[in-house]
């Protein structure tokens, strides 16, 4: 019985991500979500206060899922460079396979209010914490405090544009450019271009 209740809740959370990703956050109603999930309105309100509450929970779960997949795929790699390449590749693959998830994670979260945006920034910070190992690669210059925010901003700007243009499936073609954007603040354009050619 407890499993069934959890499964209904899960279905609602999955449906929320899908519907928001295809219709947009503002245009999504609770009715859309329960129709997609195949549950009743009563079940929805048993688990969540309203659409926004459900969205935030769904977003948290989305972040956990994507983060776990990225970490699982890149933790086996020995060097910082290989971990970053593998992590980015995993992220791009997930986004290309699940365009609605990608749109919800990157585009629609900006529409869903200040608390949702805060969750987005927190999620970005969790990913960028992994980048900070790159500081030690470049023994020379003192790198700026917010270098990982720059790298993440460069990558998410490119991804955002592709998603808004409805080109989630083509994201893997952009992987070399995304890799260059992520690496260049740490290792410079010549070495980043080399990695880009390896990824192409």
């Amino acid at each position, binding site marked *: 019985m407890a499993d069934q209740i959890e499964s209904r809740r899960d279905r609602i959370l999955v449906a929320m991500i899908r519907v928001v990703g295809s219709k*947009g956050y*503002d245009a999504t109603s609770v009715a859309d979500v329960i129709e997609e999930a195949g549950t009743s309105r009563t079940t929805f309100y048993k688990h969540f206060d309203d659409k926004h509450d459900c969205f935030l929970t769904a977003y948290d779960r989305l972040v956990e899922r994507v983060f776990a997949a990225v970490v699982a795929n890149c933790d086996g790699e020995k060097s910082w460079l290989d971990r970053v390449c593998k992590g980015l590749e995993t992220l791009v693959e997930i986004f290309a396979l699940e365009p609605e998830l990608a749109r919800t994670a990157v*585009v629609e979260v*900006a*529409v869903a209010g*200040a608390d949702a*945006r*805060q969750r987005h*920034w927190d999620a970005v910070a969790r990913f960028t914490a992994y980048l900070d190992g790159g500081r030690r690669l*470049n023994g*020379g*210059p*003192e*790198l*700026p*405090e*917010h*270098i990982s*925010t*720059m*790298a*993440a*901003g*460069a*990558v*998410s*700007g*490119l991804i*955002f*544009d592709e998603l*808004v243009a409805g080109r989630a499936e083509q994201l893997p073609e*952009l992987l*070399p*450019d995304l890799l*260059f*954007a992520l690496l*260049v*603040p*740490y*290792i*410079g*354009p*010549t070495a980043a*271009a080399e990695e*880009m050619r390896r990824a192409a």
Partner: protein
Amino acid sequence: MVGALVRAHGAGLACPDWPLCFGQLIPEIDLKVGFEFGHRVMAGGVSLALVALAVFVLRNAELRARYRVPLAAVFAILGVQIVLGGLTVLLGSLAAEPRLARLALIDAGAAGPAAQRRYRAALQRMTPFFDEGRDFAPGGRRLPANTSRMAIGAVIGLVSDEIDAGRADRLPGLLPEVLFAAMVPYLGPAAAAEEAGKK
């Protein structure tokens, strides 16, 4: 020095349009417009003189071999000055008008698909400004086509993060990091940190 005077008088946006000023070649002059317009005339004159000098040097094989490197260095300095000037005005304006900053960079992205497309299109209009960096980067022509979009994304990421956290007033202090973000895809971390460290 003239750039510093413009900054000290908060005159960076005294002419709201570019390359004309209030839609005129020679605008009505008051103190702030005078600083900004004078700055434009002088910077434009210096830039044109440099271009003329470059054409003269590059057309003569002997001069070209002898002065190619110093000429590239002079253009690099000019490029850094242009980027620095633009970003100083941008950060100063956003810090002076925090509500406008939020409207321009946060709310525009949160106002639905049409606004998002316009917002992204407006950002892309800045790409030629950033792509000047290609001329000064070693191997600049081989950089990815999207390099300017990356630089813009990095700058916007930094600035939006501060504005969304209610720290727009601190933006001018972030200038060295913003400058690093704009230049690093072209110059690499060592040269970008050196240029940013001078500010």
